[in-house]
């Protein structure tokens, strides 16, 4: 009799639990990691808002099976901090997957952590090839392209514009060194020459010594492989020294902070980035409209759309296979021709999205303008030294 009563109680409890599960969706945690403080924090905050937007839209969707909570962590664009927060996220078993990292130096430092703990991640902004191609980890994926494609297009375009003699300044992190390597290789293929290469620290203040030497080399253009803060310093110190060469940057300076930090001096600087500009993306209008409606304090910046796409892909996958790290990893590795706001996403066997499109940008009137739409392309304005 006692036993029967216990069974009845247990059944009742189960029934209650099931009932409440119907009324309230199960909560699932995902993580976003990016640089929220420090020199490149504008990009991190833009990425965070975009990923947050993906989560909010999903939670507002009545058809969603789960209620998502996005944990936000700050890697400060520093590898040591990055590994700390990556460990924190990966060791929390409640977190199923993550959209991670804008800075290459951080992303490359954390891949081992994600692999060790089996946390599937999608990189949303870092461009160093080795993040996906330097390992066989099934957990690591990336929606944006790599710096290989970026520098191919850069070298071809720059030499096509008549810049043949280059000086290279790069920061000595993996990010800057990678840019230097791929740009140098591709420039040689396109008939350009590099007459001087300068490795600088990522927090250097004074570039007068390097720039004075570059000035004496009489180059057509200076290639800069690094991020916004020192990009700003280099451009303004070029001006102080009266260097007339063209500054050619990478995706690392495609940010509003670069233009804000320089004001009119930014005019005519070239830079390259993977993927099409947001407003030209298939779902760009939708994204920008929703982003504006959510009234975030910061702009989505250059990689916001990728962060949105990465988070959205994670949520789609969890909806499909359930909140289980292993299943999500397996499902992500099979992603082929999935529609997203950044175009079709297909991961190759290293988890790298095979996007080919690279967009060329030029700073014009205080904005990054797509080259083809700029007054520089029509010949109305001239690049430096032309």
């Amino acid at each position, binding site marked *: 009799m006692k036993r029967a009563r216990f069974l009845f109680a247990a059944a009742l409890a189960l029934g209650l639990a099931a009932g409440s599960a119907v009324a309230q969706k199960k909560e699932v945690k995902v993580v976003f990691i990016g640089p929220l*403080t*420090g*020199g490149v*924090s*504008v990009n991190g905050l833009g990425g965070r808002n975009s990923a947050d937007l993906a989560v909010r839209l999903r939670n507002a969707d009545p058809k969603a099976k789960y209620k998502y909570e996005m944990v936000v962590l700050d890697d400060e664009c520093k590898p040591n901090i990055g590994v700390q927060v990556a460990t924190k996220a990966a060791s929390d078993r409640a977190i199923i997957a993550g959209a991670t990292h804008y800075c290459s130096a951080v992303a490359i430092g954390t891949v081992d952590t994600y692999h060790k703990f089996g946390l599937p991640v999608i990189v949303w902004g870092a461009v160093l090839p080795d993040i996906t191609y330097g390992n066989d980890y099934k957990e690591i994926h990336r929606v944006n392209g790599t710096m290989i494609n970026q520098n191919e297009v850069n070298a071809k375009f720059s030499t096509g514009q008549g810049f043949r003699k280059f000086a290279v300044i790069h920061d*000595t992190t993996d990010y800057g060194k990678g840019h230097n390597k791929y740009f140098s290789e591709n420039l040689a293929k396109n008939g350009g020459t590099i007459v001087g290469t*300068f*490795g*600088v*620290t990522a*927090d*250097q*203040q*004074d570039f*007068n*010594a*390097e720039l*004075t*030497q570059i*000035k*004496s080399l009489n180059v057509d253009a200076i290639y800069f492989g690094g991020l916004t*803060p020192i990009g*700003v*310093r280099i451009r*303004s*110190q070029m001006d*102080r*020294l*009266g260097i007339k060469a063209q500054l050619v940057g990478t995706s690392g300076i495609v940010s509003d*902070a670069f233009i*804000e*930090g*320089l*004001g009119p001096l930014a005019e005519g600087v070239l830079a390259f980035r993977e993927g099409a500009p947001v407003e030209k993306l298939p779902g760009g209008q939708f994204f920008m409209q929703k982003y504006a409606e959510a009234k975030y304090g910061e702009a989505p910046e250059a990689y916001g759309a990728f962060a949105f796409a990465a988070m959205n892909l994670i949520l789609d996958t969890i909806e499909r296979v359930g909140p289980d790290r292993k299943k999500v990893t397996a499902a992500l590795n099979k992603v082929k021709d999935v529609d997203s706001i950044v175009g079709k996403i297909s991961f190759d066997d290293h988890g790298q999205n095979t996007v080919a499109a690279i967009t060329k940008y030029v700073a014009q009137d205080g904005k990054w303008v797509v080259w083809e739409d700029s007054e520089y392309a029509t010949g109305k304005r001239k690049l430096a030294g032309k």
Partner: protein
Amino acid sequence: MDAGLLAQFVANGLMLGMMYALVAVGFTLFFGVLDIIKFSHGDVLTVGTFAGFSTYLGLQALGAADPWLQVLAVLLVATGSMAFLGALIAKYLVMPLKSAPPLNILLVTLMLGTVLRECVRLFFPDGANPKRFPRLLPDDALALGSFNLRLDSVLLFLGGLAVIVAIHVLINRTKLGLAIRAVAQDEETAKTMGINFTLIVLVTFALGSAVAAFAGVMNGLYYSEINFGMGLLLGVIGFSAAIVGGLGNIYGAILGGFLFAALQTVGAVALPFASAYKDVFAFAVVIAIMAWRPTGLIAEKTSERV
């Protein structure tokens, strides 16, 4: 290497050296009067620069757009507020610990530096991002072949020189300077001669901190960019410069500042490795000099300091 290029390197180096020298002077002044090392000096510089930057933003908001007026106001607020902060630090942190082991003061000021730096980062709006410092000085450029000199660089250098001359006159030609020198030489005797010891210490700290704020604003105007971490390396370099020159001797600090800038320039230009190693080179030479002359290039005379 042609003459224009050489002149350019020299001009760059002199400018850097001036900034280092101004920071080093502060370290030497504090050591002179109290025999202490104040490690928060670099961060006082940062706070001073941000105070100046806020002044600029305030003036801009009020519509006072005359650049000369702005430079003057920025400098006045930055140096004035840092003089006050320096005196506060002396009165409430350093003086109470005066008879404690020197290590304690070193630690306390080191921690204070971190507090100041983090405060700028956390409480200044968007403080973690680099800020664009306005160009307030005329930027007409003089170009001679490969030599390019802008008027604002010249003005900044002359400004720094004027500060150094002013300190020299103050220390050697005024009654206040005499009192500072007396305290540096012998605290007890100075007291018995009727010198207000506490006041002199406070004034010295105010002076050193104001000079650091001046260097910070100069840094901002020169590079057109400031950030919360700018004082960190400047502080370390200024300290090294003061040591190499001979801690306690103002001229040693100035010499050390220019020497360090020269080493960095040589490290970046003349040596066959990546310019990222220029600091490694400069600090390595500093270590070598320390081994050669432990008391600095211009050794402190035992009888007189400052």
